[in-house]
């Protein structure tokens, strides 16, 4: 029961993080000009998302780190017995990516909140893009692994 609640909260935080990072990434890489839905989606001030992204990433990673203990004991053996090796591989990649992304957060925050004039814009864009990729990977992989044998199975 505790694991299920934690997993749901982990997922909700991940959704918020995904939204913030996707907004910021698109606003950084392809700023919107038109007044259409997609134009407005990309017209947000990207720097304003940095604090939220850092906080949400840390919360999501901590919750994921706790839920991972339950996963290792209760879920993974079943996946191994069922031969879901590619899914386990994708999940392992997710955990590696999350660690690397977490270590980038201080630099990411500095680049957005304390930018230097001589600093290339592509530094911010690259870090944001990497974090967005990591979060999308983590979200999709977690979603698939969570559903692979059915909820509550």
């Amino acid at each position: 029961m505790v694991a299920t609640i934690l997993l749901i909260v982990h997922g909700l935080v991940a959704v918020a993080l995904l939204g913030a990072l996707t907004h910021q990434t698109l606003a950084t890489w392809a700023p919107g000009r038109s007044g259409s839905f997609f134009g407005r989606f990309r017209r947000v001030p990207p720097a304003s998302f940095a604090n939220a992204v850092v906080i949400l990433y840390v919360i999501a990673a901590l919750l994921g780190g706790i839920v991972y203990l339950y996963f290792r004991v209760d879920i993974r053996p079943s996946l191994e017995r069922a031969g879901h090796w590619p899914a386990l591989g994708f999940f392992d990649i997710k955990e590696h990516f999350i660690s690397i992304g977490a270590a980038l957060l201080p630099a990411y925050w500095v680049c957005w909140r304390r930018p230097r004039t001589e600093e290339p814009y592509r530094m911010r864009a690259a870090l944001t893009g990497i974090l967005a990729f990591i979060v999308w990977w983590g979200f999709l992989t977690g979603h698939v692994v969570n559903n692979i044998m059915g909820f509550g199975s």
Partner: protein
Amino acid sequence: MTSSHAFRRFAFAYGTAFAVLYVVALKLDLALFTVYPKQSVVLLGTHHSRDVVDPAMSFLAPAMYWYGWTASAALGALVFGLLGAVLPEQWTRRIWPGWLWVAPLAAMSACVYLTMPWFRL
């Protein structure tokens, strides 16, 4: 030297070093500690169940290394980060800042490569 400049150099060095050291920890299996969640036990260093019990029985004590690999890389990166913060700026200025995003991308590719055996099972 202001504290914000020092923190910037710390953050850049930490992020870059962590990416490299994480791959090293993963490849060489250098976990600072091993977690046995079923037994609620944490042992210092890398321990494999198969080293002490029959591999067929290892499912009784599933081991987790991710926390340990992350801690190993974080500890090492902390040293590089602090070095980056205290070294004179004219020294650190020579280092190409692009390593901050090139190193994580390379590390992520290396992690995918090291995980490939899962996809051949």
